[in-house]
């Protein structure tokens, strides 16, 4: 393409203005706030690195940070796997695919409050569908408390969030699958390749740009756990299901420690941002464009 030096900037101009004014200004302010003690309703008080020192020395922070890592390790593969599986399922030329596509997308638009209530009932220790099925059909005498036992609570939250988001990943994977030229796969099949060979050597590589995108988005989504945690377990029992995002909300809007919450947010940024950066750098190894 031929273009002047100014042209790219004209293309990005609206986004650039918005970025500067509506995102970077508040973000810059919040960075400054992380060096203060601020309860929001009165002026901030400068305390330097105190917030960062406190959180690095706080066992609660490390517990929550560890929960965040575990959550990401469980959630990201789960939601990507589910999304891809669903996309492949509905991409088959079967009657009713359109209907199923809509159905799988439903959780993404259903209110998290309703989703959580329904799942709380399914996972309820005494009266829940799951445990009653375990007792009746599988003879498990004392099934665990999925939401009340520290060993399971975090995984329960990761599972419910994955269930809710899978429809969205499915949509993205579908868009990617639709972009793959069918003549390629057909030609390979005619040449004698099996379905799984086609999948591994043609579909997956051609899907890699979208897979990369979904990976980054899922990683970012794993750090946006406030809504689902609040509705499902309230962060309990005893912080077992508290991830950084929930801990940040607690500090910001329950305890009104906005300075500390901002410092926490920058730690979250370091973690997720670091992982994202690694992904971007490693991109060349496995992502094929055009």
């Amino acid at each position, binding site marked *: *393409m*031929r*273009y002047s*030096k100014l*042209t*790219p900037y004209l*293309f990005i101009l609206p*986004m*650039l203005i*918005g*970025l500067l004014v*509506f*995102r970077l*200004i*508040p*973000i810059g*302010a919040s960075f400054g706030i*992380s060096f203060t003690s601020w309860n929001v309703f009165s002026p901030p008080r400068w305390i330097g690195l105190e917030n960062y020192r406190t959180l690095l020395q706080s066992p609660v922070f490390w517990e929550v940070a560890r929960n965040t890592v575990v959550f990401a390790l469980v959630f990201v593969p789960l939601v990507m796997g589910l999304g891809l599986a*669903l996309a492949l*399922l509905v991409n088959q030329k*079967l009657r*009713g695919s359109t209907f199923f*596509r809509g*159905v*799988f*997308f*439903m*959780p993404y*638009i*259903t*209110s998290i*409050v*309703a989703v959580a209530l*329904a799942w709380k*009932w399914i996972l309820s220790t005494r*009266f829940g569908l799951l445990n009653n099925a375990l007792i009746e059909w599988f003879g498990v005498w004392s099934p665990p408390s999925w939401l009340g036992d520290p060993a399971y609570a975090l995984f329960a939250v990761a599972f419910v969030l994955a*269930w809710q988001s899978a*429809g969205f990943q499915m*949509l993205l994977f*579908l*868009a990617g699958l639709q*972009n793959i*030229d*069918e003549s390629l796969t057909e030609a390979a099949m005619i040449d004698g390749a099996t379905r799984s060979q086609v999948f591994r050597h043609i579909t997956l590589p051609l899907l890699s*740009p979208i897979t990369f*995108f979904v990976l*980054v*988005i899922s990683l970012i989504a794993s*750090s*946006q756990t*406030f809504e689902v945690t609040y509705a499902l377990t309230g962060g309990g029992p005893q912080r077992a299901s508290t991830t950084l*995002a929930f801990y*940040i*909300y607690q500090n*910001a809007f329950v305890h009104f420690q906005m300075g500390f*919450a*901002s410092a926490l*947010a920058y730690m979250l940024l370091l973690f997720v941002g670091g992982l*994202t950066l690694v992904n971007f750098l490693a991109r060349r190894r496995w992502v094929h464009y*055009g």
Partner: protein
Amino acid sequence: MAEPAVVIDPVRDAEQARRRKRAISALRSGVIYALLAVFSFLTLFPFLWMVITSFKLPGDVFRIPPTFTPTLLFSDTPFANYAEVLFKFDFLRYAGNSLFVASIAATGQLVTCSLAGFAFARMRFPLKNLLFGLLIFTLLIPIEVTIIPEFLLMVRLGWLDTYLPLIVPSLMVGAFGTFLLTEFFKTVPASLEEAATIDGASPFAIYRHIFLPLSTPALASLFVVAFITNWNELLRPVLYISDRNLRTLPLGLTTLQGQYESSWTLLMAGSIISILPMILVYIAAQKYIIRGFMSSGIK
């Protein structure tokens, strides 16, 4: 020479092979349908619970074991909850407000994100990687810590109690949307671009006549996502909207919640009302996301 013991009948063999293939194909379809059915049940279950609850009487919502009879449906006024929510609680107006805000924000995102995505994907310019990195970086900061500074900014701009804080930021800067479209635009073959350049097309013409049409799945997906994200947003309307008539749906739903008690039946009716437009948007966008076989261009 003796005749062979087994007659080789090519026609019959082909026939048998076809039948076998059909049987395997039918089995495969069956398995797929079964999987789809199981997933569908799991997926629809909470939504079904919401619908049933919206047709219940208040005392029936929390029972152990939970009941699935929509008790209100069998009374004289089956749609009482919906009527109350739509008219007494003004949800019809709130739905209209949400529709207005979300449509403008989502449409605006299509424009700004595609323009920016085109530049990031196909052009070279100084600071490109830095700007892109900044964009992604903004996705990683939780809204809780930026909302108060943002609020103070809006106060200074004089935008309180208007729709501007809800529309303008997401219209102008969609980090997710730009990221999505950048990745998508990168997959368009360079040959198309080169051919158009040789024909004398300007970058904007290439963007408009080649890249946009090829990216309808991504654009439609982005519209759906942007619409839904904006539609479901609660924290910003809570802080920015005071006027009752300007309320969006999620804000309206909070009026059904109380300090000690919430009206669950009304809340579910209101939630269903809130979900329906998103379903419609999704169905409408589906056509563009799923195209049939499409030539990807020059071979």
